[in-house]
Structure formats: C-alpha cells, structure tokens
C-alpha cells in the first residue's frame, strides 16, 4: 500500500516537473540617458540635475502567445522595485519556451482594486496602496529635478486610479519573436520630460493628469533591440 503511494508520489512529481520546467525570463530595465538607471545618482544634463530616489511599479496579467498557443500566468501580480534589483527579473513558468507576442498590464486591474485585502505583492504594506481613497498606485517615481519649483526641487508621481474615466491601467503589447530572454526597457528620462517637472511636480491621486501621464509612460516602454 505505502509502496504504491510512494510510486504514485514520485510519478506525479515528475509529471509536474516535466510540464512546468519551461521558464521564460522577462527583465525590466529602467533607463536614463541611454544607460541603466541608477538610484540616488545625480544625472547632470544641460538644463538640469536629476536624481531618482524611488521607482516602483506593478506588472500584472502577463500573457504570451504564438500562432498555436496562448499562455496566461496565474495570479499574475508582480511588484517591481528598483531598490530590490532581484524584483526586476520575472521568471515565468510556461508550457513553451518560445512565443511571438508578450502582453502585460502596467498597474492593477479594476476588479482586483475592488476585491478587498490581499497578500504578497498586493499587501497594503508595500507602499503601493492609497489610504485616504481606495486603490493601488500602479507606478511610483520620486526624486529631485533642479527645474522643479517645489520644496527641495522634489517631484512625486504616483500614478493610479481604476474607476471608469480615471482608469490609469496601461496594456502593453510587445512583439518578442521567439526570444528566450526578454528585456523590456523603460526610458525614465523620456517619461520625466513628458511629465514636465518644471510645471508639474506632484501627482498623488487618480484623475485626468494621472491618466495622461500613464499614457506617456506606455510610450517609453520598449523591447530592447
């Protein structure tokens, strides 16, 4: 009896291992002036000095597809925090090694936003949940820019909002052409230019500006060539 159970156990494990052994790596690399972004580093440009202190964002609902196959990651919520570089590399257990198309969301979908308390990367202790008004912060960028007219030249962009016209969630689709390791670059310098810190140094709540800036963010997310 016990021996049969033991054999079954081994068998089921090996089946599990076999079917889930494929792993696809997706690395997110925030960029500044064409290089990997360094936190707490003074970037001296012609017009300003910029220092990025915090960069944190959610990648969710990862989907992969090829002509024949579609894959969707279960419980697909990832908090990426540049302070913890290991979080920038996602290892996705898939059924295949190669896909043509990668699709994911930048931020947290509206259903999850209204579903109550959750754990793991969605735990409200992660600093990505607004307390005065319900909702996840999809993307958080904080630092200083000498052009900012705010106190200590600080800028804080907290982009989020899930309800109807203030939905800031961005859907991103990248053609990955059978690549085994995918590198997604986010040009933070270009995003910052679009945000125009000289005139807008703070977004801390959902609204039209958060939506507009989220669309700008989508534009600077590209596959590494």
């Amino acid at each position: 009896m016990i021996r049969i159970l033991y054999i079954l156990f081994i068998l089921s494990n090996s089946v599990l291992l076999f079917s889930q052994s494929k792993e696809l790596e997706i690395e997110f690399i925030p960029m500044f002036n064409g290089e990997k972004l360094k936190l707490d580093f003074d970037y001296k440009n012609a017009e300003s000095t910029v220092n990025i202190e915090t960069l944190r964002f959610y990648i969710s609902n990862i989907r992969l597809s090829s002509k024949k196959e579609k894959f969707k990651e279960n419980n697909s919520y990832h908090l990426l925090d540049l302070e913890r570089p290991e979080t920038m590399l996602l290892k996705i257990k898939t059924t295949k090694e190669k896909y043509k198309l990668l699709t994911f969301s930048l931020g947290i979908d509206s259903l999850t936003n209204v579903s109550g308390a959750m754990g793991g990367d969605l735990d409200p202790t992660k600093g990505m949940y607004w307390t005065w008004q319900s909702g996840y912060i999809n993307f958080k960028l904080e630092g200083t820019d000498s052009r900012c007219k705010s106190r200590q030249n600080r800028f804080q962009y907290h982009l989020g909002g899930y309800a109807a016209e203030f939905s800031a969630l961005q859907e991103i689709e990248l053609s990955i052409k059978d690549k085994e390791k995918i590198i997604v670059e986010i040009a933070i310098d270009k995003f910052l230019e679009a945000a125009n810190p000289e005139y807008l140094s703070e977004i801390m709540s959902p609204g039209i500006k958060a939506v507009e800036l989220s669309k700008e963010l989508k534009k600077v997310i590209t596959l590494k060539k």
Partner: protein
Amino acid sequence: MIRTLVIMVILAVFITGFDLMTAYRFDPPEGWPAPHYDFEKNPFSAAKIQLGRRLFYDPILSRDSSTSCASCHSPFNAFAHTDHDLSHGVEDQIGNRNAPPLFNLAWHPIFMWDGAINHLDMQALAPISHPKEMDNDIVKLVKKLQSGSRYPKLFSEAFGDSTITGEYILLALSQFQLTLLSNNSKYDSVMRAESAFNDQEKRGYELFKTNCNNCHKEPLFSTFEFANNGLALDTTLNDYGRMKITQQATDSMKFKIPSLRNLEYTYPYMHDGRFKKLSQVLNHYSKGIVQSPTLADELKKPLKLSANDRVDLIAFLLTLSDRSFVFNKEFGFLTVY
C-alpha cells in the same frame, strides 16, 4: 495503524469543521437582501474574529498608542461617537467628519461619507493612516505588532502564520466588524410578528413610508447611495462630499445615506454632526432645505410634517433602537494579555 490515523484525521476535520460552521457562520436575517461582502474570500473563524476584536479595541493601532478604533466607534453608541460632532484623533486633533456607527456592514457596498473606500477590508487603512486620526502607517503597525509578545501568537492561531502582514490585520478587523449585526429592535420584532407597534408608532411608520423610505429603505434603512439632502455648506469645513472623489460637479454636496437604525444612540447627526437632536433633523427636512442643482428629487418640495406628525415619526424612529446590540457582550472590549 494507518486506519487509526485515517479515522483520527477524519474526526479532526469533522470536529473543526463542525465548530466553525455552528459558531461562526454569517446568517443574514430572514427577508433581508443578500449581503454585499464576499465571505468566501475571507472565511469566518473564531480566532480571526477575536483577533479582529482585540485589534479594534487596542490603541496600539495609533502612532502614540493613544487611540483605538473604539475611541470614535464606541459599542454603547452603536459604534458611533456620541456628543462629538467631528471625530477625534491622536493628540486631541479634530477630524473633518462625524464618525458613523458600525453595524450591518456586510450590506454596505462602499464606505466613508464620500465613498472614498471601496471595500470594508480596506476601510481601516484610512483612520490608521490619517494624521488627524491614528497618524500611523500600516508598515509601522505591522512592525509594532510583530515585535510585541502577544500578537504573533494570535496571528498564528488565526492565520496559521506568525508573520504578521497588512492583509491579515485588515481581514481580521473586517471579520470582527462583520459580526456587528443589529436586527433586534422593536421594529424587527414587529416585522417578525413577535410584537406590535402602539398607535403612535403605527402612525409614525406610515409617515416614514411616505416621506423617508425612498432613501432610508427598509430593512437596512438606507440604500447606501449618495444624495444631497439640502444641507447648507459649512464654510469652516468646505466639504463637498462625493464630488471630491468622483471630481464630477453632479456629485456636489452628496453624502452617503446613513442607516436610521440605532439613531437614538448615534447623535449628533449628519456628516459633520451639525444636528444634536432628532427634532432638529426633522426641522431641517420640513423647513431648512437649501435648493441646489444636485438636491435629491425627494426633497425639492419640503416634507409636510405637522407638530403631531413629528412626534409620531420620532416615536417610530425610536423603535429602531436595538438595545441587545448595544449591550451585546460579544462585541465589547477585549484586551490582549
């Protein structure tokens, strides 16, 4: 050997399952609508409810360990804050709104006077973090609870995990608050045909059904929607209610419709606690309405209530007091030792 083990496992599963089912199932009262809260995502257990209860009464939640949830939500006031028009927080700071009572929360689709909070689980984050309330931070709170000697054990008993998380704190607080069911007022016993209204209450009930029931709908005595009930703007607060959240002019001066249950215990009234007495509330509805584009349709013409009508209506409203709820020992103070 194996057989004994199997029997023991079955017995254990049966006993624990049985215990949870009988003692802590959430039973909506008969004839009430289906609750809004999804209990499957946060299954009830005795340990979680009691943990939530301890947290609710423990000032450890605030930055300086001075203020608990119960500071503004006292059981003897149906979990509101009698006598205080605006809520109080750490270092005697005064907030911007009146603390609402807490009961029958499973039926609320949205929270706060302006609907800023979309789920009961997430509600507690607001007072914990607000600088004029507990002035704390959920990350600091987790550390504080984890470093003490009492809570890790309680979280372990409740969640099978002594590593405290924000999620566990919020789920436990929800569970305790969900147990705050109030359905034993005189009104409820009349509806269950266990007792009867006197003549005055009967007349009051008819007036209620004609004038109030559209917004303060039975059996919960609210639709939990947002409405402008014609209050003048208090220029010391400049609180436009729901508009702050939706950023829509059509939501100006709209506030969440409160339940009328237990109103005997929950004075003062309105989002800013401007009325101390029920008679003032009825005066407002009959001759104090401020006309504006967002005013509720029901109030465009003032309510016609004679002096006798008001007395009758108040007699009915007092049948919504649930003494057994207010004095229920299961909901009372519990310390951690």
